[in-house]
Structure formats: C-alpha cells, structure tokens
C-alpha cells in the first residue's frame, strides 16, 4: 500500500544564477495518498511542481518512478506519459465546452475515425470515467452551467484521463498535482470537493499544494514544508499529533534571533481613536473584525496566507466593500462602497510593497512623488503645475531617504528594487496621511533597504501617523506594531502585545 510511487531527490534550481528557488529539495508521493506541500509565497512550491510537469528543467536532481530512476520530463506531455499531471489554480476550465468535449480536449486524435470525431464513443467513455471517479454530472452539460466544485472535479478527472491516455502501458497510477485548488471555492464547495477527492484516492495519488493550513491538516496523509527553497520539515499526519499553530510556525520559521525590540518607539494607547471597526465582515473572507486604532499607533494583522488578513486591509483601503459591520473614522461612518480616492480624501492611504502596483515605472521620480501630492504643487491662484515646486519636493525626499539616482528626473524603472521602494514610501512621507495602510511594505527587497524603510515608517509613526500592517515577515510586526491581532480563518483569534508576540513566535 505504501509503496513509493514517485520520489524526487535533491532538486536544485536557480533562476538567473542568483535566486535560489530550490536548494536540494526531496519529496515523495506514495500510492493512493494525498500528500501536502505547503509553504509561503516564494517558498518554491510552484517551481518544484513546474519541474515535475516539465515546464522547467532542474539544475540538478534525481527522479525515481516506482523505484526506477527516470529522466525529468521535458514537457507536460512527457510528464503525462510518466503518470504526472497538474490541475492549475484557475483558468483551467473552458466554459463553453460540453463536459465530454472538455474531458477529451487535446486527445481528440485518439477518437478520429474516417476524419470524423466519434462523439458517441467519447460520450460513453466520459460517462464511464465520471462514474468511476464519483463525479455526478451530465456529459452533455456545458462546463459553465456546473458548480465550481464540480468543475474542479472534472478538471481532476481530465488530468487522470490524460495520464491514462498518454501513458505507455495504461497501468500507471496517475499522480495528480493540485495547485491550490480551493482558492476560488467557497467553504461548502471545498468540503464537497474534498469528500470526492478522498474517494478518488483509490484511483490516483495526489500532491496537494496549499497554504491554507486547516485544509492540509484535515485531508492530507503526509505533509512536506518548504521554506526559502529548502525542505524544512515533513510530518506524517496519521501518526504525529500536531496543531495548526505548530504547522504554521514550521511554515513561517522561527526567526526569533532576528527580532529587534524597540520599546522606545512604541507609545501607550491613550490618544484619540482615529479609526475604529465594529464587527467588520466580508463573507467568505473575514468575520467580526473589531479594533480601535489610536493616533500614532500601529495595529498588525498577523496570520497565514489565506487567513483574510490582506483582505481586511484592502477593505479599509476601499479596494473591497465590506458586507456587514461599521467602519468609523473621526466620528464619521465610512460607507462600504467608497472608492480608494474617497478614502484617501479622508486621510486613509494605502501603501503596497509591490512596486508594480504602487509606482508608475515609466515616470520620473519627481512625477511619482507629486502624483499624490498634487495640491502642493498646483499654483495658488490658477491651478497650474509648478515644476519648480515639484522638483524641490522630490529633491527633498531623495536627499532625506538617500535614494540613489542621478536626478529626480530619472525614470523609476531604472532604479534598484530598494530605491523604488523608497520612492513609494517617500511619496507617502510627503503626503502625511492620518492613517497609512501597509500591505507587505518590504516585499522583495534586500535586508539593508528594509531597515531604511522601517526607519522611515517609524519616523512617520512618531509624527502621529497611525498605521495598520499586514506582512509575510513576522519581524516587521515586532518592529512596527503596538498591537498584533492573530488572524486565522478570517477571524481574530487573539490580540497580542509585541513582547507576547515575540514569545509566542520563539517557542
């Protein structure tokens, strides 16, 4: 029963000779099991899977199939021949095809007789396989008419079918990779999908990629944890007793030594409340979130990806609308359907660490800074842009943040990642909003630049700007936050002070 079906050993993969996506990772999948591969964004999950299905080729590594060493597949068709197929997160379904057409998409050549497609044979076989895999639906139905969970199951059926049609002997047990399959599904749809997935275990093995911890805990037999391109842990969930928090800590890592306690930067609550939320709810994402943000304070929402933490901050920014609850700023209730520009006019700014979102890369530094400070550079009498003021404002920021650039007229796309980030944070420094929402403020930049960004943010905090932080980096919370709200499954589990937070993270 527990034969090793597929084994990957010591896989290395580097991109552009710099980024180590995978550093000697080994995983295995056994017959008739669901094996989980979990990790944060950028941990290397997707790279590993793309190597398995032949999209990338590894720099180094070995692949064993039923104990026999085989070369890595060079393309998805070759992978299917070895029994490996993948169901992607989304966009895999073609809505205007009928179920049987979709099932055989790309394999029509096996059903051609006298230049015509044998529709009846295809339908017959489609019925058979759907029945075998316990998928209840009509083969004549259009894909878009079916519920999302059924669509997902048909996609899985298609992957299994593809392996059967492609593999040489037809005997190979299919190994189906599920790349975060539940992302587009609602809770009920998820449950339904997993119920049938457990039945399908008879017919295939699954590699289940996810960062949603409860799912992994409930439905997988074993789990591999990847972090920064390394395999950091593997657990046999049927034998070992684990809590969700244990797994979460394995994913995030215990970076306790890096924590800097900066008590002097923190202030006790007591100043007036600038933003308060009461039972803020967005169905399907987060429920009953309540908090009071005081002037000059910083609240952090901490939790695993998919916990709803970034949805909370996006809702406050006006990028999403909440369904229930109240959001109040300066004694005024914020309507759910307000857009980001309306929120900004109330003093709520949204700063995303993704420079592609935040910056206009084909623009100069000066223009990027002045765009949200337009009022400062327009003439008092006639609203005409004062180029001199614009330039001085930008030069000021460049000097203050030590942005390395030939001049303020330099286009942003030519700057390094850290300097780009400084430009984005610099424009908010100039704008001086009441509340700044930080969405992963230091994503993708080097350690040195990170420290610089923290310096700026702490300085802004001292100037009584309130902040809300969401990040993948636990360290950031203990540097910036006064209160940390632990979010799991869309609900705030507990509220911690920075000291407690550090204790929890280091045990």
């Amino acid at each position, binding site marked *: 029963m527990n034969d090793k079906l597929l084994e990957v050993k010591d896989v290395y993969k580097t991109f552009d000779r710099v980024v180590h996506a995978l550093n000697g990772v080994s995983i295995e999948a056994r017959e008739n099991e669901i094996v989980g591969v979990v990790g944060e964004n950028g941990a290397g999950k997707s790279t590993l899977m793309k190597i398995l299905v032949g999209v990338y080729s590894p720099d180094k590594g070995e692949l064993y199939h039923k104990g026999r060493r085989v070369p890595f597949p060079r393309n998805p068709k070759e992978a299917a021949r070895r029994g490996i197929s993948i169901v992607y997160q989304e966009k895999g379904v073609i809505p205007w095809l009928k179920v049987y057409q979709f099932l055989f998409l790309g394999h029509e050549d096996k059903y051609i007789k006298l230049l015509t497609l044998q529709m009846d044979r295809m339908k017959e076989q489609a019925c058979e396989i759907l029945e075998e895999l316990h998928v209840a639906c009509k083969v004549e139905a259009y894909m878009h008419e079916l519920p999302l969970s059924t669509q997902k199951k048909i996609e899985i059926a298609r992957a299994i079918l593809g392996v059967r049609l492609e593999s040489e002997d037809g005997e190979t047990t299919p190994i189906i990779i599920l790349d975060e399959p539940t992302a587009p599904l609602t809770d009920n749809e998820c449950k339904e999908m997993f119920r049938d997935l457990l039945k399908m275990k008879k017919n295939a093995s699954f590699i289940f990629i996810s960062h949603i911890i409860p799912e992994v805990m409930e439905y997988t037999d074993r789990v591999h944890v990847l972090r920064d391109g390394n395999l950091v842990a593997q657990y046999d969930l049927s034998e070992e007793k684990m809590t969700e928090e244990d797994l979460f800590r394995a994913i995030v890592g215990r970076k306790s030594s890096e924590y800097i306690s900066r008590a002097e930067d923190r202030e006790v609550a007591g100043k007036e409340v600038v933003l308060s939320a009461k039972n803020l709810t967005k169905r399907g994402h987060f429920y009953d979130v309540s908090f009071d943000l005081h002037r000059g304070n910083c609240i952090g929402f901490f939790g695993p990806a998919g916990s709803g933490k970034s949805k909370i901050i996006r809702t406050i*920014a006006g*990028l999403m609308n909440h369904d229930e609850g109240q959001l109040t700023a300066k004694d005024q209730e914020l309507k759910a359907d307000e*857009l*980001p*520009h309306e*929120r*900004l*006019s109330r003093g709520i*700014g*949204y700063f*995303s660490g993704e420079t*592609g*979102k*935040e*910056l*206009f*890369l*084909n*623009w*100069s530094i000066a*223009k990027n800074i*002045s*765009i*949200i400070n*337009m009022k400062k550079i*327009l003439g008092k009498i006639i*609203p*005409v*842009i004062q180029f001199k003021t614009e330039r001085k404002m930008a030069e000021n920021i460049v000097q203050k943040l030590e942005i390395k650039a030939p001049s303020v*007229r330099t*286009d942003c*796309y*030519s700057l390094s990642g850290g300097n780009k980030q400084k430009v984005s944070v610099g424009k908010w420094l100039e704008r001086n909003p009441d509340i700044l929402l930080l969405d992963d403020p230091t994503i993708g930049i080097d350690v040195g630049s990170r420290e610089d960004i923290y310096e700026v943010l702490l300085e802004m905090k001292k100037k009584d700007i309130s902040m809300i932080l969401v990040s993948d980096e636990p360290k950031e919370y203990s540097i910036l936050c006064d209160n940390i709200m632990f979010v799991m499954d869309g609900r705030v589990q507990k509220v911690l002070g920075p000291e407690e937070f550090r204790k929890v993270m280091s045990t």
Partner: protein
Amino acid sequence: MNNQNTNKRIFSVITQTLKMHPVIIVLLALIVIFGSIYPDRFFSPINFKSILRQFVTLTLFALGPSFVVLTGRLDLSFVGVWMLGGVFVWLFKPILGMFAIIMIPVVGVATGLFIGVIQTKAKIPSFILTLSLLVTYTGLSALIAGGYPRAVEGYEFITSPLIPLIPTAFLLTIPIIAAAIFLMKYTRICVYLNAIGSNEEGAQLAGINVDKYKILAFMLSGLFTGIGAMILFQHLGGSAQMELKLNTIVWPLVAIVLGGTPLTGGSGGPQRTLLGAITFTVFYRGLYLSALHPIMVPLLVGVLLIVSIIISARGLKGVTVT
C-alpha cells in the same frame, strides 16, 4: 569659455529633445530625402501650402482622440462627430443662423460624455463601442440629411485667405493646439490621464477618481474634435458629408502613434500628436509628388502604421513623459 558653455547647453537641450521626440529625426530625414530627390517640386510654395492644409485636417482630427489614447483606450467617434455635427449645422441653420456651427462641439461633448459613461460603467472595450457609435452616426447623418451631402453656405470666412501661402484654417488651428498643449503640460489632467494609462491600479491607489477622469478624457476628446470640426467643416468643403472614408479614420491614428503615444497609453499625448501629424503629412506629400503610382500610397501608409505601432509599443518604453 562662456561661449563654449552655451554651446554645450544647446547641444544637451537638442539631444534631450531628440530623445524625447525621436520622430523629429524621422521628420528631418524625410525632408532631406524628398528635398534632395526633387527639390523643385518639394520646396515649391504650392507643396508648402498643401502640407499645411493637410496638417490642419490631420491635427484637428487627431488631437481629441490623443487624450483618450493616453489612458490606454481608443476613440474612433471623431469622424462621426464631424459628420453628424455637419448635418446638424445644415439642419439648424434656418433656426440658429450663423450660430448653428455651435452644434458641432455640442455633438462632440455629448458624444464624449455618452461614451465615457457607458465605457466606465458597463466596462465595454472602447474600441468596439466607439466603432459601433461611428457606424450609428453615419447612419443617423444619412437619415437626417436624406442620403446625400448637403452644402451649407455662410461659413466661407473660415477659409478665406488672410496671409498669402498660409491657409487661414491653419491660423485658426494654432489656438486649439496651444490650448491642448497647455492642458497637457501645466494641469493635473495630463498627469492623471497618464497615470491611468500607465498603471490603472496605481492611479486608483494614488487617490485618483479613475472613472471621473476616464469620462473626462472622452469629453475632452469630444470637445477638441468638436471645435476642430468647426474649422474642418469649411476646410473640407463646407458641406455635411455622408460618405465614411477609411483614410479619415486611419490617418489620425497613424499621426497619434507616429508621434509617440503608444496605443496602450501611459505616455505621450496631444503635443506629440502634432509632430506625428506633420511627419505623416510630409511623408504623404513626398510620396504623392514622387514617381510612385498613387496605388502604392495606401500600402505604404499601412506599413508605416504597423511599424510605428511596433516601435511605440517596444522601443519607447523609456521615453520620458512630458
């Protein structure tokens, strides 16, 4: 010493300008080429006048849509505004007298508002929306006018010669150009439209009311097209036209792209369109005077459009926004 410094400065200004507007090089090259092949015909007063005349047509049609192209959208309704506006002038002349010409910008702004609202609220691709509207306007014009062109008299003063060699329509175009350049260079409208074309999500995060400025772009397009079409109405014959010509739609687009505003938006604008318009006119007139068979010309225009679209989409990424 001082002299040397000034020279250096002039040199750097020139290189900077050329870097920002590479089409100037093309323009100069075209003048040199055509001028050296047949200097007599190319540098003749008649040709000079023809170039100016054609430049006026092209510029007035292309200025408005430039605002929209800047946001990464497309507005093809400009020809429709000119046609339907012309028919309205003919229709309202008996009632409004000379003021009937005002109908053209009214049609323009109304059209812009209509497209803008539909485009932003219903999220329809602007290309197909404006194209459908253009066809609708053609049909509507023909219906109102009874199917054939209607001459309208009384606006001859618009094109009556004032200065020898320079068409009056050109003189009237200058303030329109100036207004467009002012809008683009010194007001926040330019920055916001560019922002939407460059990075719409970023623009939203920077607190720009994206929908409002998209609608504004279409309205500006309609306004500039409308004002321009007042001149064009007389410039192109003083009658309400019925026939939809492909060239009237495509040439302004060539001028926009050639000037350096990529159709994906994000940089450029009306000021570049002017350079595109003059370059295209010189190109067209040069070919027109050459020994090439006239049938060749549309082919070459098409090739020019394709090449400039490819270059503007790829090569000009680093060109600074003015």
